[in-house]
């Protein structure tokens, strides 16, 4: 049951093969049995999920079902959900109960989807391994000794471990695509402005973007359909028609021009990954696409540019966590300054503090021009690179990450090495483009991801290209052994 696609679950529900309550209970049972081993969830919402499932069943019976009615899913714990703990992976918000719904949360409620719980993440979405969460690390279901990637590691691990069919996630510098790659699932970061940021706790406002995770492009299309909307509450939301993302999934790729940026196959790329990605590119040629070499000459500047701009925005975005109105407040402050200092000292973890310090530094008098302003200029150059490339190609393909999932602690002592995890994903955020990761191979049993990058608002084409690849290959159907490691499966031995 937990290997079914969203469309299959929907069909099963409408045919009455099972109810929403049953499939919801099935996933809740799995979460209770398996999640203690991988810690994908921060909050489990059994009660509200089952209540919503009952409602969904009534709707289905009344013939009023939407594509997501009664479908269980998980929310990254970065989305504010009314009456539900919303922690953002931080001690600062350990006991924070949101008084309102994020637009993404409201949209999915409206769509009739059933929220199973809220997933673990790097604190305030700052990290590439989910190791910075205050609520403990999440394990990669493919190898419990390795990281699931991050910051949306909880959502990625939950989908990979079949603890949710689909999940919401967010991506500021690769936080959907990198964990999707490391966990062998499919994840899409839409165009900046496609999904409302209202109620999504901000990390770097000019790059934060929510998107879907699932086992396939087809599932991602359905989830994105419900997430995407123009929202007048978000000034950066773009009033652009939301197309039917499932409509063109099967369009033939004959004549598709696929750009291959040479810079994304250079230094630091594991040759085995390069080989897997080249295999995937060969598959696209078989599907009728043409490969075209392109250049993104400024992409080497993407990581340093990002690590000026994102911390700068974050340093201001996180100022509201001051212990005054909500969130963690230290015990017995001696005065106002003591309250500020200790509340933030205790409430934030090391990586968050590091980025606040970097951001504060690059905005300081005397450094602004050298860092912040310069980085803004480079951001423009990076965007121009893509604009030029898209004059010759329809879509760009590259590896998602330079390596497969790494061991816990392997990069925690060297932040820069951790930051380089996002070397291929970050420039996409700087340019505001849509990008996707889909499984395209394995190395020693660990998944490898292929990244597809599209033009602004070209999510449909990315989904189409990913879906056609998934029709021709079965990397996306592989599940980690852990997913079947239930007492059910072990039942015969007891």
């Amino acid at each position: 049951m937990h290997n079914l696609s969203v469309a299959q679950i929907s069909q099963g529900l409408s045919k009455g093969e099972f109810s929403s309550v049953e499939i919801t209970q099935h996933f809740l049972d799995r979460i209770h049995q398996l999640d203690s081993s991988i810690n994908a969830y921060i909050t489990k919402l059994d009660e509200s999920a089952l209540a919503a499932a009952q409602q969904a069943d009534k709707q289905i019976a009344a013939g009023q079902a939407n594509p997501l009615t009664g479908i269980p899913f998980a929310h990254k714990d970065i989305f504010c959900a009314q009456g539900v703990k919303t922690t953002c992976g931080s001690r600062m918000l350990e006991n924070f109960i949101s008084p309102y719904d994020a637009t993404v949360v409201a949209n999915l409620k409206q769509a009739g989807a059933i929220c199973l719980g809220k997933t673990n993440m790097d604190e305030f979405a700052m990290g590439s391994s989910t190791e910075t969460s205050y609520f403990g690390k999440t394990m990669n279901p493919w190898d419990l000794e390795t990281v699931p990637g991050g910051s949306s590691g909880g959502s990625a691990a939950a989908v990979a471990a079949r603890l949710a069919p689909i999940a919401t996630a967010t991506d500021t510098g690769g936080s959907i695509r990198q964990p999707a790659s490391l966990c062998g699932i499919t994840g899409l970061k839409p165009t900046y402005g496609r999904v409302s940021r209202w109620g999504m706790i901000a990390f770097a406002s000019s790059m934060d973007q929510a998107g879907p995770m699932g086992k396939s492009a087809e599932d991602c299309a359905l989830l994105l359909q419900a997430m995407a909307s123009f929202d007048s509450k978000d000034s950066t939301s773009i009033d652009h028609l939301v197309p039917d993302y499932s409509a063109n999934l099967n369009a033939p790729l004959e004549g598709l021009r696929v750009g291959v940026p040479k810079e994304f196959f250079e230094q630091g790329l594991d040759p085995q990954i390069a080989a897997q990605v080249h295999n995937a590119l060969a598959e696209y040629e078989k599907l009728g696409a043409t490969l075209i070499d392109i250049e993104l000459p400024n992409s080497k500047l993407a990581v340093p540019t990002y690590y000026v701009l994102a911390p700068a925005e974050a340093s201001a975005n996180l100022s509201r966590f001051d212990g005054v109105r909500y969130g963690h407040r230290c015990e017995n402050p001696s005065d106002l300054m003591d309250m500020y200092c200790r509340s933030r000292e205790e409430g934030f973890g090391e990586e968050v503090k590091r980025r606040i310090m970097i951001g504060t530094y690059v905005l300081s008098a005397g450094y602004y021009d050298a860092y912040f302003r310069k980085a803004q200029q480079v951001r423009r150059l990076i965007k121009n690179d893509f604009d030029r490339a898209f004059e010759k190609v329809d879509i760009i393909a590259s590896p998602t990450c330079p390596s497969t999932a790494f061991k816990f602690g392997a990069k925690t002592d060297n932040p820069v090495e951790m930051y380089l995890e996002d070397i291929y994903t970050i420039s996409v955020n700087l340019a505001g483009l849509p990008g996707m990761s889909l499984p395209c191979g394995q190395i020693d049993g660990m998944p490898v991801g292929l990244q597809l990058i599209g033009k602004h608002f070209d999510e449909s084409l990315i989904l189409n290209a990913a879906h056609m690849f998934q029709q021709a290959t079965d990397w996306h159907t592989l599940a980690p052994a852990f997913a079947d490691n239930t007492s059910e499966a072990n039942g015969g031995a007891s």
Partner: protein
Amino acid sequence: MSWETVIGLEIHVQLKTKSKIFSGSAVDFGQDPNTNASAIDLAMPGTLPVVNAEAMRMATRFGLAIDATINQKSVFERKNYFYPDLPKGYQTTQLAEPIVGPGIVTIQLENGTSKDVRIHHAHLEEDAGKSLHEDFHGMSGIDLNRAGTPLIEIVSEPDMRTPEEAIAFLRQIHAIITYLDISDGEMSQGSMRCDANVSVRPMGQEELGTRTELKNINSFRFVERAINVEVERQIDLIEDGGKVVQETRLYDADKNETRSMRSKEVANDYRYFPCPDLLPVVLSDEFVQAERESLPELPVAKQARFVNEHGLSAYDASILTQNRETADYFETAAKTCGDSKLAANWVTVELAALLNKNDLGISDCPISAENLGQMIQRIKDGSISGKIAKTVFEAMWNGEGSANEIIEAKGLKQVSDSGAIEAMVDEVLAANSQQVDNYRNAAPDKQPKMLGFFVGQVMKISKGQANPGEVNRILKEKL
């Protein structure tokens, strides 16, 4: 040594929008704490700002009113600092690209001259909340009702040289914003707030002295006192061999002194940067043009018209145009009586004095403009003297009716009948024969002054109702 004072003002004006600048909460004062504070105003995680178009419109209108450049692309930035009544930990404001660029405000001075004060720029920003320190048992309360109220901050160049000029400038800004109806402009309520940058330099020196910034000046009256006391302090300091430190100083109206608040050397580095939650605001040509065309008649234009059409002095015109209600009041009174100068006199002198004494605004004036006009008309047609008019005026103030009703009811109509006046003159001359002799023997140049005595006596007998011109004429004849 003689010193020159240099003054620049920064004026914060709360805009009269229905909702806040970045949220839908009502802008409505005097409510229970935190009842006009939404999730956005509380800076709840995940909340985002959306610019209030009405605030942009009002700021645009202000810019057009001072003939300023309107920056059709303006950018909101974050000004970062921690304070409990600043919920986001930054104030959303404008710095590099404010909505209103350089402009000019012309001020009228009492000596009849005018002066142009340059405006450096005016920008939009959000107000902070309030910290409450009483009744919290050693803790502080935070009220965020005010947080997010739209403000325009108007920054002048250091073009003023005296406190009088500063007050005239402040009054002119007040007149403009109230004419535009974009703010209440109540300094006592904080809907208009003024900081003054003050420095001194030896007369003739071009280079500016080190300035201090005076805060907490919350009435027109205090502007003058605060600047004077600070100028004195700076001059004393320099003459004693000291140096002025660039700093923010708080004006204490009770003690009439300024005190150091914080030194700029240890001031915050505000780390301004463009707010990524808000796109640059772009105003179309059509929008700006439509606002320009729909501006009301502004103080300067009205002043010019009052001088040209009504024949008033520039100073009287500037006093009468300080607010729209006063100007309208004057125009109605002038129209009713047909004598603009007399009307201007009555409004700026007698009426202003009574309003002041009773702490009333023109809109609360118990005498309608029509009634005042009617009374002036009765002076003009000789029905009452200027002196009797004051009695009528007071009776109108006390609500005893219209000018005509009061004149009628109290029998105050002037006596111009020459027979009646002759009788009174005869009576006075008979009763004061000694003075009559003195007058007749006096040198001709002394006589006019001596005539006053007889006039006074006649007026006394007539209870002020005799027509003074007629009394004079008949007295001269008989003497």
